């Protein structure tokens, strides 16, 4: 360390510290000196000055030493330091005794004492004055108390102080305010002025202050409280106002302290000062407390009212009150009976048990309930009210840790509905505030509970009404009884949340209940019928709804075994117009399910149900009426339209069925012992069959009812012994349970019974009976109309049938066949079984035809025409109808059919034209039968037809034979025979006509001649009778007919038909034509040369013209050549005649064909310069044996023909060849040729080939003549030709035996 540093550390610093200390103290003492200047002391001043001096020196020295090294350098720094520290000691001591500084600066203890006394008195006065001022500003008692505590603390240094108020009337002192201790606790302290040992109590009684130095030893002090406060010494001062102790002030000290009399006096003064303020403040406090209470109550009330749910209300109430009044528990019991009303809401302070199952043992609330007042108990252990053992004792409360209780009844309109109870764990005084709160809240709860109950009731009522409304809607939405009743049970189950429901309908007449609908109970109960007992009986007899609890056990018997499972049942009557019509019930499996409200609801619902059921019944009734109306309409419809009896009866059945709402209906007619089914509606086939066979068993009841015109009803067939067992069984098998029968009279008095069958047992109302009667009346008209119609129709049918049969019979030419037809048709006509036709033969009746049962083997059986029913009819010539032949036994003897099963018959005579009897027709029936007049008439008509047939059939037979003969003749006649009727239609077309026309008879018959032959055969009006020739087409060929015509006239002179007879004259006609043509041709051929001869002769003879010689020569030449031509023609004609007559004379010689042909060619060439004529002959020549002239004629003809038929010119060759025995000559041309069809005919007389045309000259005799001549000469001729290619005529002649000349062929060409 440097020197300098050492100097500073050891010298300067201590010096400055010294300076600071002394100067600081001086400075600090300065105000004290100034304050105590009245009691100025020199010592004090001197010491102060010394201190300043020391401080100043030290400061200066320090500063010098710092700035001047020399200063004090002589002294060791340690010395300086030591000196400085030494000088520091007095100052430090002064600071140490700082609190006693005033002793130092003042005048000392005596002065102090005097001063103290003076100041104490002054303090007291000041204190009182200050308190007074403070109190005057204090707003409340508690504030006043606090001001007092402030003053006590500041003046007397008291830290623990308490005030307890004294209520002399109540005889208690209660903690009010405190400081220095737990004020909350203090406020709970209550001291009995009579009994408690306490300084407070003592002071309250004595009205004098009490000072206790050591509380532990003081008998007057409450040790418990003292301990709690922690006091060693204490003082108690009464607060007096108007001479009364209103409160007691207690102050305590933890340390031993003896409160001096002056202090006590001061406290008393201050207490007195405070008492007054406290009195005023207490009044204000009371007011405020009341206001606060009201506030609390109104707040709780507000919150309570703000809740709608009752449980929420109760919870709010207990919670709010519990917290507001600092309780351990608050709860509400609800129920009119206080003893066992359950706890509905509870609030507990943290850590406190709930009541739990101790609810039944709450004596205080029970007491409050019993006495209908608020019970306030400060401490249950000492409360005499709880001594009553019936309340249940205190134990339960003790167990719950409760000491103090308030219980107040909750009233609604003077009726206790519950208890509101408040608990505290400690015994405590319940302030009026507490009680007021409890009571006020209880009232609020009452109102809330009442409101909530009302709301709940309203809600339920609304629910019920809504449910009822819905149920009502549902019930009225359907109009059918069965649906309504089913819905009824469905809805009531929903409405009452029941497990099951049922609906029973009451049959008052039978006193039976019938189950109509169930829900929740097995369906098998529907339809059951029971005698009302128990609950049902009660409900039916009283007409009131009944709730039956503990049903399974107490109801005996239950309606059915299925009801044993139910614990509760409610039944309500269904009434209408004061009459119980049924019972509606609901069932529950649990006990306590239904209450009175439910019962009311069920009752209401049952009323609704009554309405709905009534509506349904009305609807059903209306519907039934509508059905009835429809039935009437149906009948009216039937009446309006003419229907057959069968249809009318069916319609009647339907109408009855519809009108009465039955399942099926049928119409029966008594027939002998049986009932015959005549009409039906919806009747099953089995039943129809059964009835068709006749009703089984005894039907007398039905028959009698019908006959006596009575309505017969059977509501329950099963039990109705008016009907035979078998009938009942039959109907029951078909599912019918009841029936009603109404009589209906037919037009002819037939008694029908309309029987309507029902599938259910049925009570027939007056309406039903009226309906049945109405039906009876209404149906009669319809039936009369139908019978009339039926009669007409029958007549029509008969006549139609008869006409048909007549038509049929008319076609029967054989009488036996006609009779067979008659006996077949007769039973059909009369709807009977058999028919027999007997003919009179030798005064006997002989069976000639029979048909039907019982007629086997009776054919040809003879019987007398005088016996039996048939004999009577024959003798009387009048019909005989027998309804029941058994009544006349002899009929049976005479008639095999009546003897064997047939019961009734009708026999009609067959009268032939002119009044004669031909036989008897009899119809039989196996049943008794009343033959109607129209039936007898119809049969008579049939018999007449049969007679006519009998007559005409014989006639027919003869005619037929005649016709057959005629037909045979016609068929074999050579002429075609065609007959047409008056309409022109062909009725006869014989075989020859077929051949000639080529049209088969089948095609021609029935058609018109003009259509068949494409032209008419008739001559037409005004034509001359006789044969005519006309042509028709057969295929593509023209056929010429020679027709003669005969007109057939009927009786009236009108044309009834025509007969044409014709022959095919085509071939004759051809010949005729050829002849005619021949004549014309020959005429032409003769006239042409004659014209020239005659003409030139006349010309030459003309005197007026002079002809030259060449002219004359020419003219004469023509006369000569034409004459020759004429001679040739005449020769030909003569030759033909000779050929035909066989008178041809021949001169046979050997002729050289070649030479002769040459002549012919030369001759022909004169006229035919356009043709090339050629000869082709063998060199040896061909020699034949022939007549020279005739052969020349043949050759010339052939060459002429060749020229004639080669109009375009061309080559014509003549060739000859020698054969073994004959010679063959061919003349070939290149002309038009000959059609194949004509190749044979060209050799016939007069034939001129087609296409030759009239322009081609020639007699047509050339080839005929050539052939004839060649044949005559032992030769033959034929032609080889193709149409268009020319022809070659070839002939053969016997060759000459000698003179066969073999020469080369010589061709001659011209």
């Amino acid at each position, binding site marked *: 360390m440097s020197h300098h540093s050492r100097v500073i550390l050891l010298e300067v610093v201590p010096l400055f510290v010294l300076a600071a200390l002394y100067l600081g103290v001086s400075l600090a003492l300065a105000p004290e000196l100034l304050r105590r200047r009245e009691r100025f002391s020199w010592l004090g001043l001197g010491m102060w000055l010394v201190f300043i001096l020391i401080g100043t020196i030290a400061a200066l020295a320090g500063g010098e030493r710092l700035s001047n090294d020399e200063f004090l350098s002589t002294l060791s720094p340690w010395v300086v330091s030591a000196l400085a520290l030494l000088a520091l000691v007095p100052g430090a001591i002064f600071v140490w005794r700082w609190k006693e500084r005033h002793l130092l600066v003042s005048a000392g203890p005596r002065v102090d004492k005097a001063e103290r006394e003076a100041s104490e008195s002054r303090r007291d006065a000041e204190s009182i004055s200050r308190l007074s001022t403070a109190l005057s500003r204090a707003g409340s008692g508690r504030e006043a108390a606090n001001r007092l505590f402030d003053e006590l603390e500041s003046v007397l240094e008291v830290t623990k102080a308490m005030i307890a108020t004294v209520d002399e009337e109540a005889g208690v002192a209660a903690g009010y305010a405190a400081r220095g201790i737990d004020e909350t606790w203090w406020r709970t302290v209550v001291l009995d002025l009579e009994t408690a040992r306490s300084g407070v109590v003592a002071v309250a009684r004595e009205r004098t202050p009490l000072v206790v130095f050591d509380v532990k030893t003081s008998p007057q002090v409450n040790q418990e409280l003292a301990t709690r406060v922690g006091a060693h010494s204490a003082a108690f001062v009464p607060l007096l106002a108007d001479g009364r102790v209103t409160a007691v002030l207690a102050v305590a000290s933890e340390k031993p302290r003896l409160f001096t009399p002056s202090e006590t006096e001061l406290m008393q003064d201050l207490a007195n000062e405070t008492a007054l303020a406290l009195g005023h403040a207490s009044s204000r406090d009371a007011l405020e407390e009341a206001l606060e209470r009201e506030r609390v109550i109104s707040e709780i009330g507000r919150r309570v009212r703000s809740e709608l749910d009752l449980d929420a209300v109760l919870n709010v109430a207990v919670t709010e009150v519990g917290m507001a009044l600092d309780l351990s528990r608050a709860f509400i019991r609800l129920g009119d009976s206080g003893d066992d009303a359950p706890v509905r809401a509870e609030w507990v302070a943290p850590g406190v048990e709930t009541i739990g199952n101790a609810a039944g043992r709450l004596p205080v609330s029970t007491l409050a309930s019993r006495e209908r007042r608020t019970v306030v108990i400060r401490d249950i252990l000492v409360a005499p009210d709880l001594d009553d053992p019936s309340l249940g004792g205190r134990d339960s409360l003790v167990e719950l840790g409760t000491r103090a209780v308030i219980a107040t009844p909750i009233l609604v309109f003077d009726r206790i509905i519950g208890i509101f109870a408040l608990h505290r764990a400690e015994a405590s005084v319940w302030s009026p505030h507490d009680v007021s709160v409890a009571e006020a809240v209880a009232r609020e709860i009452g109102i809330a509970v009442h409101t909530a109950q009302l709301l709940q009731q309203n809600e339920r009522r609304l629910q019920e009404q809504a449910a009822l409304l819905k149920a009502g809607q549902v019930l009225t939405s359907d109009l059918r009884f069965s649906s309504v009743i089913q819905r009824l049970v469905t809805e009531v189950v929903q409405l009452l949340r029941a497990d099951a429901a049922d609906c029973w309908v009451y049959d008052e007449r039978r006193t039976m209940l019938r189950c109509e609908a169930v829900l929740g109970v097995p369906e098998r109960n529907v339809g059951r019928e029971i005698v009302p007992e128990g609950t049902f009986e009660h409900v039916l007899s009283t007409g009131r709804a009944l709730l039956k609890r503990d049903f399974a056990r107490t109801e005996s018997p239950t309606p059915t075994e299925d009801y044993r499972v139910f614990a509760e049942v409610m039944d309500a009557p269904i009434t209408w117009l004061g009459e119980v019509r049924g019972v509606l019930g609901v069932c529950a499996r649990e006990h306590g399910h239904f209450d009175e409200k439910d019962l009311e609801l069920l009752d209401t619902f049952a009323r609704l149900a009554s309405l709905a059921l009534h509506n349904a019944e009305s609807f059903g009734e209306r519907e039934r009426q509508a059905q009835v109306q429809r039935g009437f309409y149906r009948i009216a419809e039937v009446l309006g339209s003419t229907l057959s009896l069968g249809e009318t009866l069916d319609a009647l059945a339907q109408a009855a069925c519809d009108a009465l709402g039955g399942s099926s209906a049928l119409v029966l007619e008594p027939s002998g012992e049986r009932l015959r089914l005549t009409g039906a509606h919806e009747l099953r086939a089995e039943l129809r069959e059964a009835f068709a066979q006749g009703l089984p068993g005894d039907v007398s009841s039905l028959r009698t009812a019908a006959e006596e015109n009575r309505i017969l009803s059977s509501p329950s067939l099963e039990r109705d012994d008016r009907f035979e067992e078998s009938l009942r069984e039959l109907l029951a098998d078909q599912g019918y349970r009841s029936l009603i029968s109404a009589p209906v009279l037919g037009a002819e008095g037939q008694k029908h019974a309309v029987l309507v069958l029902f599938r259910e047992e049925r009570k027939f109302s007056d309406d039903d009976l009226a309906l049945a009667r109405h039906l009876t009346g209404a149906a009669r008209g319809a039936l009369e109309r139908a019978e009339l119609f039926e009669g007409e129709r029958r007549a029509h049918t008969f006549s139609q049938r008869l006409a048909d049969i007549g038509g049929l019979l008319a076609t029967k030419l054989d009488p036996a066949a006609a009779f067979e037809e008659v006996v077949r048709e007769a039973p059909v006509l009369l709807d009977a079984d058999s028919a027999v036709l007997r003919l009179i033969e030798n005064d006997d009746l002989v069976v000639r035809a029979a048909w039907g049962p019982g007629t086997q083997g009776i054919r040809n059986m003879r019987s007398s025409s005088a016996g039996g029913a048939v004999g009577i009819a024959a003798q009387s010539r009048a019909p005989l109808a027998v309804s029941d032949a058994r009544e006349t036994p002899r009929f049976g003897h005479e008639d095999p059919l009546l003897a064997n099963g047939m019961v009734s018959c009708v026999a009609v005579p067959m009268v032939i034209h002119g009044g004669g009897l031909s036989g008897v027709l009899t119809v039989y029936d196996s049943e008794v039968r009343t033959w109607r007049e129209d039936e007898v008439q119809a049969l008579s008509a049939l018999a007449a037809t049969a007679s006519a047939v009998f007559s005409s059939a014989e006639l027919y037979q003869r005619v037929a034979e005649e016709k057959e003969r005629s037909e045979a003749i016609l068929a074999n006649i050579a002429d075609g025979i065609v007959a047409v009727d008056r309409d022109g239609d062909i009725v006869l077309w014989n075989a020859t006509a077929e051949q000639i026309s080529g049209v088969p008879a089948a095609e021609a018959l029935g058609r018109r001649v003009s259509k068949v032959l494409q032209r008419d055969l008739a001559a037409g009006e005004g034509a001359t009778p006789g044969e005519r020739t006309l042509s028709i087409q057969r295929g593509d060929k023209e056929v010429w007919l020679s027709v003669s015509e005969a007109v057939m006239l009927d009786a009236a002179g009108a044309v009834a038909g025509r007969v044409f007879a014709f022959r095919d004259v085509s071939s004759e006609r051809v010949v005729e034509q050829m002849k005619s043509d021949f004549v014309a041709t020959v005429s*032409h051929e003769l*006239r042409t040369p*004659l*014209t020239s001869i005659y003409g030139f002769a006349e010309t030459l003879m003309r005197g007026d013209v002079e002809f030259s010689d060449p002219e004359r020569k020419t003219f004469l030449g023509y006369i000569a050549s034409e004459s020759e031509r004429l001679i040739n023609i005449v020769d030909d004609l003569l030759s033909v005649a000779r050929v035909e007559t066989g008178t041809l004379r021949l001169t046979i010689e050997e002729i050289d064909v070649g030479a002769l042909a040459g002549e012919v060619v030369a001759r022909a060439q004169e006229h035919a310069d356009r043709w090339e004529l050629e000869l082709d002959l063998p060199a040896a020549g061909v020699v034949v044996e022939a007549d020279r002239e005739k052969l020349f004629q043949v050759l010339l003809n052939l060459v002429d023909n060749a020229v004639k038929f080669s109009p375009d010119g061309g080559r014509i060759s003549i060739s000859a060849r020698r054969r073994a025995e004959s010679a063959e000559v061919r003349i070939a041309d290149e002309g038009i040729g000959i059609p194949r069809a004509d190749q044979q005919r060209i050799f016939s007389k007069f034939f001129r080939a087609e296409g030759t045309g009239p322009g081609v000259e020639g007699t047509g005799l050339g080839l005929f003549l050539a052939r004839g001549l060649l044949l005559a000469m032992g030769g033959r001729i034929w032609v080889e030709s193709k149409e268009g290619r020319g022809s070659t005529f070839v002939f053969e002649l016997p060759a000459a035996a000698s003179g066969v000349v073999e020469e080369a062929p010589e061709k001659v060409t011209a």
Partner: protein
Amino acid sequence: MALTVLVIDDEAPIRLLCRVNLEAEGASVLEADNGLAGIEVARQERPDAILLDVMMPGMDGWTVAQELLEDEATRRIPIIFLTARADVRDRARGLGAGGLDYITKPFNPVELADLVGGVVDAVQRGEREELRAEKLSELRDLLGTT
């Protein structure tokens, strides 16, 4: 006035006969030996009258008459049939076919010119139809009598 007469006939002697006798009376004569040739000549020469044979090879007289009458050029030329067909029905047919007269062979050729001249005159006088009616009437008389 000289007439021009067309003779249609296949027989040369008869054509010659007609020519000689008609020319002798001052008429000029045209000839044709078949129908087609006759029609051609008639169209070209427009004769005053035509003597027409019926039975000719090829086209017969009936057809020729029909052709001539259908042709505007020859329609008005009077046709006189000259034929060996003497039957009344043939006569009727001839008149029906439009002929104004009907001469049957054999005939007196000396009278031919007068006959032709008469017909031509009548036609030229516009009495064609009257002539036909007259001939038809004659024919009916003839038919009635046979």
